[in-house]
């Protein structure tokens, strides 16, 4: 007798148990703590906070642990949790010019007011596996003291003033003007209002900031290879802490409620001018929580490419196509829809099966009929 091959609650519960077991791995190996993830896998935490749209290192670390290191799954956990959080209001705009700098470089000028600050970067490491890190614990204790950076004697502390590099170009009028929106309360929020094309830059930037790093990286790369080329220079990349201010209604003036670590990239792009605008430098902007340098650079390239419509450029490449970029940048939407193909589709498939059989039958009959009209009758 046929037994229904449909999944049930028991199967789901057992699958969850197996998952918990796999997550823990070999019990002989000590369990990973969320504090360890927060401290030692900090770039994973930064990505999960950025694409999860929630600045909370502890929750991000928990999500990474629960997701077994699958960062998109961790971002998903954070996004779903974010839905349940009450919203008190919007902070005042943060001022990245007043950032407590940890890293700040410009590729457009050899020296800049405030100087170039390398900070913690992989950039000039040789990508050689460091087998010392694989050695058992104990070794780490020995290296920790002497290998950590100290400010050499006689080197001055960083300047208090670190003006943004693109602001220096602004004084000469060589770079496109960017004005803040009329009213801060009119700034769009795609988590509260669905996107309606064409969208303005505020929503575009929000979409890109939440967008998948890999997707933006590939799109940004494509602009460098000629698909919507815009001759970029890394005007400035900076990393550091900024204060977050909030204006409670009953106080009426801003109070500092904490600080966040941000990465910012300002691309400067050559522009020969169009019927809409004179020759000048144009800009692309990237911003993320934590240290996500690759992400903010890619984001800045794509932001610039998406300005094509406003600047009167020919819009014919994927990275310049607003609907294409913005509808496909979100990895939670993308992974959900791609992976929904795992769900049963046998009703639709049955319908297609019936159709293909019918069409093949008709074609067979037609073929037979051409060769020998009597054979069709015989076959039927």
């Amino acid at each position, binding site marked *: 007798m*046929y037994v*229904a*091959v*449909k*999944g*049930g*609650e028991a*199967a*789901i519960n057992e699958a969850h148990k197996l998952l918990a077991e796999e997550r823990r791995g070999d019990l002989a190996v000590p369990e990973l703590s969320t504090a360890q993830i927060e401290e030692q896998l900090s770039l994973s935490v930064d990505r999960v906070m950025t694409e999860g749209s929630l600045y909370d290192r502890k929750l991000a670390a928990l999500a990474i642990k629960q997701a077994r290191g699958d960062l998109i799954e961790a971002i*998903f956990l954070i*996004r*779903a949790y*974010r*839905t*349940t959080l*009450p919203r008190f209001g919007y902070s005042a705009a943060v001022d990245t010019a007043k950032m407590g700098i940890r890293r700040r470089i410009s590729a457009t000028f050899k020296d800049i007011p405030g100087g170039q600050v390398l900070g913690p970067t992989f950039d000039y490491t040789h990508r050689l596996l460091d087998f010392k890190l694989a050695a058992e614990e104990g070794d780490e204790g020995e290296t920790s003291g002497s290998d950590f950076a100290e400010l050499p004697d006689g080197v001055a502390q960083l300047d208090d003033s670190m003006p943004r590099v693109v602001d220096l170009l602004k004084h000469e009028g060589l770079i496109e003007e960017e004005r803040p929106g009329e009213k801060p309360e009119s700034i769009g929020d795609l*988590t*509260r*209002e*669905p*996107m*309606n*094309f*064409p969208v303005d830059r505020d929503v575009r930037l929000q979409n890109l900031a939440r967008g998948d790093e890999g997707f933006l990286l590939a799109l940004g790369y494509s602009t460098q290879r000629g698909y919507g080329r815009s001759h970029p220079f890394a005007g400035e990349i900076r990393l550091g802490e900024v204060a977050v201010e909030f204006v409670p209604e009953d106080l009426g003036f801003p109070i500092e409620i904490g600080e966040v670590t941000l990465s910012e990239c300002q691309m400067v792009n050559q522009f020969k001018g169009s019927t809409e605008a004179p020759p000048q430098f144009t800009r692309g902007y990237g911003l993320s929580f934590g240290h996500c340098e690759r992400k903010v650079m890619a984001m800045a390239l794509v932001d610039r490419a998406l300005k094509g419509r406003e600047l009167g450029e020919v819009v014919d490449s994927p990275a310049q196509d607003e*609907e294409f970029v913005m*509808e496909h940048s979100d990895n*939670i*939407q993308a*992974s*959900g*829809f*791609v*992976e*929904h193909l795992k*769900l*049963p*589709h*046998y*009703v*639709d498939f*049955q*319908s*297609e*099966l*019936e*159709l293909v059989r019918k*069409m093949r039958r*008709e074609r067979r009959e037609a073929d037979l009929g051409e060769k020998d009209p009597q054979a069709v009758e015989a076959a039927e």
Partner: protein
Amino acid sequence: MTQSAQKNPAQSEAVEHGHADKIGPDPNYNFAYLDEQTKRMIRRAILKAVAIPGYQVPFASREMPMPYGWGTGGVQVTASILGPDDVLKVIDQGADDTTNAVSIRQFFVRTAAVETTEHTEEASIIQTRHRIPEKPLSEDQILVYQVPIPEPLRFLEPRESETRKMHALGEYGLMHVKLYEDIATHGHIATTYAYPVKVNSHYIMDPSPTPKFDNPKMHRMPALQLFGAGREKRIYAIPPHTAVYSLDFEDHPFEIQQWEQSCELCGAENTFLDEVVTDDRGGRMFVCSDSDHCNRKREAAE
């Protein structure tokens, strides 16, 4: 679902599914997960959708604790209309015991502690993916569809900015040409599911990927039909007793799927059948896709 449970329809599903220890909804979350502001926003979108049958209303879809594409739109609609006294039925592919239907039902048992049922006529809200129950629905029921791609014109024109214009102007020539080309190439319309319909003689609408077998059930259905697309952030509706017409041509009228077989379990001859492969030598059998309908028919025969 257990055999004993099937014989005792009065027993609450919460007990059947092992949640007997849970008296109220999970205290860590608001009733039915979404906060009341969000529910209000979704209800406003639903009201607008009911007022303009077949029109896709944009709404600020939230991120839910299940993946996009797995019913987040339907879940948000259900969460917004669900009250503590509702009785919920969840089906996927017509069946109550498919994995995702089980998962969504558990979600509402956990967050809203509502009574659930597998019996079509007992449910006040039925959330579905890909099927309409075989048993006709009544005026005091609501059918909530999970929708992956709400735009019927999407595969003819990928741009939202264009398709919205086409709907606004009632410019549906592209769709008619597509159907005509099917006939010119194959001799018949080669669309078997997500078959486009015209609602209230105005908007062309995607009935979600239900088989065209179910399209006639939408026409003048006494129950309210709500469609939720979470990833695409759209809600649309067919109010009770609204005319729903499957697109066709005078000389090529719309027709539904027919089977030569009848259900091998219950003997039904007028239901949608799933084909089940029984061995690797071409053996197969056909059974009802609507599991409740099939179980009840068999019980009645016993």
